[in-house]
C-alpha cells in the first residue's frame, strides 16, 4: 500500500486500534508515523474541545425569540396571503402561455409538431417560387386562376364562347 492509502486508512481507524498491516507500515515509514502522531494529537485536541460545556441559554430565550419575531416578522394577513397566492398563480399561467406562444413561433413549419395540415394549406412550392419571381409572377397568377368554365366572377353570358 502506498503512503497516501495508509493515511486515508488511518482516518478510517479514527481512534480505533490500527490493524497489523498499518502498524507494520508505520514501523518502517517515518512520514506516515509522523502523520499518525499529528493525527493523534489533533484528535486529542478535538476531544478536549468537544468536552467543553456549551454555554447555557439565558432564561426565557424561546419567549424572547417569539417576541422578536413580532418585531421583525409582521403578522401575515390572510387577505394578503390570498392575493399573494393568486398573484403567484397568475405569473405561472402567464409564463406557460408565453412559452406556448414562443414554441409556436419557433417550431418550423416542416416540423412534425406542426402536422400535415400546415402543408396542405400552403400553396405548392413551385407556385410560391413563381409568385416571388418578378418575371413569372403574372403567369403564375394566371395559372392559379380557376379554369374559365368554373369562373364565377363572370356574369352569365360573359364567359368564353365556343
Amino acid at each position, binding site marked *: 500500500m502506498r503512503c497516501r492509502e495508509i493515511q486515508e486508512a488511518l482516518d478510517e481507524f479514527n481512534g480505533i486500534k490500527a490493524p497489523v498491516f498499518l502498524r507494520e507500515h508505520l514501523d518502517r515509514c517515518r512520514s506516515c508515523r509522523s502523520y499518525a502522531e499529528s493525527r493523534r494529537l489533533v484528535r486529542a485536541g478535538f476531544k478536549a474541545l*468537544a468536552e467543553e460545556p456549551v454555554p447555557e441559554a439565558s432564561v426565557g430565550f*424561546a419567549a424572547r425569540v*417569539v417576541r422578536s419575531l413580532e418585531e421583525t416578522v409582521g403578522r401575515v394577513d390572510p387577505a394578503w396571503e390570498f392575493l399573494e397566492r393568486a398573484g403567484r398563480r397568475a405569473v405561472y399561467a402567464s409564463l406557460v402561455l408565453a412559452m406556448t406562444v414562443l414554441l409556436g413561433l419557433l417550431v418550423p413549419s416542416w416540423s412534425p409538431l406542426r402536422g400535415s395540415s400546415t402543408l396542405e394549406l400552403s400553396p405548392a412550392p413551385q407556385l410560391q417560387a413563381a409568385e416571388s419571381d418578378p418575371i413569372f409572377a403574372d403567369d403564375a397568377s394566371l395559372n392559379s386562376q380557376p379554369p374559365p368554365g368554373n369562373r364565377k366572377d363572370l356574369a352569365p353570358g360573359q364567359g368564353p364562347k365556343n
Partner: protein
Amino acid sequence: MQSSPQGAQELEWVLRSQKGDREAFGPLVERHERRVRSLVFHLVRRHDEVEDITQEIFIKAFKNIRSYNFQSSFGTWLMRIAANHCYDYLRHESKARVRYFWQMTEEGSRALEQTAESPREDGASIEERMSARDLVEKLLARAPAQDRIILVLKELEDRSVEEIAAILNLRVNTVKVRLHRARKRMLEDLDRLRQAR
C-alpha cells in the same frame, strides 16, 4: 415524517408556524435550541456572540419555514440553516478571517513564529507547550469556513457522515472526500507550524 407522539406534536407546531402562528414556533425553539447553540458555539467559539447568532438563526428559520417541505426532519432542516448562517458569519466576520499558516502574509507568519519560539527552558515541543486543545482551537480558527464546518460537525458534534451530508445538502461520498481533505490540510498546517520553529 415522524410517527412518534413527539414527532406528531412537532409536526403540528411546524404546520401552525407555516401558517404564521408565532406562538407555535416557541416550542420548536425550546426543543432545538440546545443543538443549534452547540453548533454555533463550536463554530464561532465566541461566548458573547453565541446567543445573538442562535437567535438570528431561529428568526431566519421562521421567515423561511414555508419552504420546509418535510423531506428531511425539521431538526436537520434547522441545522442546515444554522450551518449556512454560521458559514456566512465566518466568511464575513473579519475576526474569523484568519488563514492557514502558509497562506498568511509575511508579517502574520513572523508573528506566529514568534509565538512558537517564545522562551522555554525545558526544550518542550510546541505541542507540549500549547496544549492539544489550544492547538486545535488555533488550527480550527485558521481553517477556511468550509473545512471548519465539516470538521466541527464530525469531530465536535459527533455527527455521522450521512447526517453531515443531509445538513450540508451534499452526497455522502462528497462529505467523505471533503472531510479527508480538511483533516489533511489541518495536519499540513500543523507541520508547517512545526517546521517554522
